[in-house]
């Protein structure tokens, strides 16, 4: 991981950036910050959500997104971020209207649950519809043949489901071998397996997220999908001098030395409070050790790595811009 540039040329050439990660690692936040970073300097980026959670609207503090592209933020240097919430049912209806003239029966079918039923019948269909819509936005051009979006960032399903979601070829095995959806899905397969797509995995420096990250990267490679970067989120600064970490994690903190230091700083604490500080120090050291071993494990995969700091005040729009800046500083463009 340390051997590669943080954001190499082949990643910055990608037009579709898929962001996945274990639940709770902050994948939606990272996807939004990445969209802002890519838009920095005057580009136009689309941020797409497919999970129906309306996480983007919450992050940017706006009304729930409709099934339509909407400008949600300006990026430094004149860029802009648009957002789209793709809903499988709406995509299916749109799709039907494109190829069959359903008229206003569509709405009634929706009320009857017919559309949910069709996507239930073939679970792969849902994913094909969602990725199909994403592909349409990536490939869309204006009257002059120029791409409408310079890049598309997809807030994708979590690591546990990502390969199944992107492996449209497999999903299509359940579906019709001919017809319009087959033609469309062939295009999706070409895009997802090409140089134009990079799949980034968000992780925390914790045991389970790192394990899932490694598994997801292996699975992605096996399915001939291209892992982009590992984005380590919520990195906290280590406070202890490196040489004391192991000892402190084993419970050996020199309370006398701590007390002497506190006294010379003019702090006169009760023995209980000094014990409390020592307790906090031991827990901190145990965590730092766990983070070190998580980092080591991540070096098993030779992928570019980006680190984002922990934003303790919580994620609001201002914090998103800070994270985007951190990405730009590490070479994201």
């Amino acid at each position: 991981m340390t051997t590669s540039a943080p954001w190499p040329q082949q990643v910055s050439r990608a037009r579709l950036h898929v962001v996945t990660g274990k639940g709770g690692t902050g994948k939606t936040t990272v996807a939004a910050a990445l969209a802002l970073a890519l838009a920095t300097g005057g580009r136009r980026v689309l941020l797409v959500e497919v999970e129906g959670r309306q996480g983007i609207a919450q992050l940017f503090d706006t009304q729930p997104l409709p099934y339509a592209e909407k400008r949600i933020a300006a990026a430094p240097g004149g860029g802009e971020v648009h957002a789209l919430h793709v809903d499988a049912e709406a995509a299916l209806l749109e799709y039907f209207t494109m190829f069959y003239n359903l008229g206003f029966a569509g709405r009634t079918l929706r009320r009857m649950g017919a559309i949910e039923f069709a996507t239930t019948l073939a679970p792969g269909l849902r994913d094909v519809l969602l990725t199909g819509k994403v592909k349409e936005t990536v490939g869309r051009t204006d009257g002059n043949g120029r791409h409408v979006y310079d890049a598309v960032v997809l807030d994708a399903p979590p690591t546990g489901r990502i390969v199944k979601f992107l492996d449209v070829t497999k999903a299509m095995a359940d579906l019709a071998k001919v017809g319009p959806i087959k033609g469309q899905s062939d295009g999706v397969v070409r895009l997802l397996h090409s140089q134009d797509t990079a799949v980034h995995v968000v992780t925390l420096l914790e045991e389970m997220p790192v394990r899932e990250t490694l598994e997801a990267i292996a699975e992605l490679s096996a399915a001939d999908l291209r892992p982009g970067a590992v984005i380590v989120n919520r990195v906290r600064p280590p406070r202890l001098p490196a040489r004391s970490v192991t000892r402190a994690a084993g419970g050996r903190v020199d309370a006398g030395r701590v007390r002497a230091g506190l006294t010379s700083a003019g702090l006169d604490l009760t023995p209980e409070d000094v014990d409390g500080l020592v307790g906090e120090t031991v827990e901190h050291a145990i965590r730092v050790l766990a983070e070190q071993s998580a980092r080591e494990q991540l070096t098993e995969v030779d992928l570019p790595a980006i680190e984002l700091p922990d934003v303790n005040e919580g994620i609001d729009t201002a914090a998103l811009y800070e994270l985007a800046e951190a990405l730009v500083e590490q070479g994201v463009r």
Partner: protein
Amino acid sequence: MSNQLDVDGLIDNPDIHVVVCCGSGGVGKTTTAAAVAVRAAERGRKTVVLTIDPARRLAQALGLRELGNTPREVEVEGFEPVGRLAAMMLDMRRTFDDMVLAHAGEKRAREVLANPFYKTISTSFSGTQEYMAMEKLGQLAGEGRWDLIVVDTPPSRSALDFLDAPQRMSTALDGRMIRLLSGPARTGGWGVRKVVSAGIMLFAKAVSTIVGGQLLADASAFVQAFDSMFGGFKQRARKTYELLRSGGTAFVVVATPEPDALREASYFVERLESEHMPLSGLVINRTHPVLAKLPAARALAAADNLERAGEAPLATAVLRLHADRVAVHDRERRLLARFTKAHPSVPVVDVPAMPADVHDLTGLRTIGERLAGG
């Protein structure tokens, strides 16, 4: 501060027979369920814990090596509870198979189990895991071998899926839709206006071009075979739902002090209230209590002074990490205050973060003590 959730009061109450742990993914539901079960067994209850997809090492802590689909007595060194503890991992395919076998004659059951569409429904349909977790709970309750069942819920996108899953499954497997799609001509009595039925014809045609004729034929055969069992399924789902609403059940919502998890917890609390489900309280996992009474600003000022003087690097580090911890703690309090303001009557208990992952009985006992406010 809101009132404290009394976990011991809950598990010692002989009238409580089911504890359901729910919450969004990644908040430690399974660990909480296991810790509650271990504590209940050690306090004398005949307990069984139903886990969904536990982390491997947690499963090992309970002596579970594989999906069993039937409870097995927990036999771990150093574990001699006053009561009893059995544990199981849900095998959703087998639970579904068992349900089919129990409700259909042998011939029908064989037809259903052999149908390719059944494979899809029993493994990939979103909601099957939730439905099967509730089915298994119903079975365990029906056996009457346990006086306390602790249930973990699946890590679904929405934490409420297990309440809705049986209904969704009913809609999906209800014969009407499939008959409509496989042969619109034969469907009568739909009460749909004519102008729409033309649309339906087109829709049916469109669906069959998309999913392929074979799949539709399989689905149709499946639904026909399934029809006879359907009443039984619905009845069982209703019975489990009633069990969940009874006074013998206690819902424990689990969250972490993070905005997403607490938002989900709020949503859950509201939903449980509107369904008249008995909510016991909220468990906040992985909190970071401050262990020394020293304000962050003073700690930072002192650290700056020491650093300038180039003195006492250890004390400087200790002061800085303390200030970090105070900041984390304050943020957690703020987030929790938002929840308690919206739901002042919901009892809460904090479970301070363990420095390392829990994967043995000692760890589960410690969490149990923290759950009980110790």
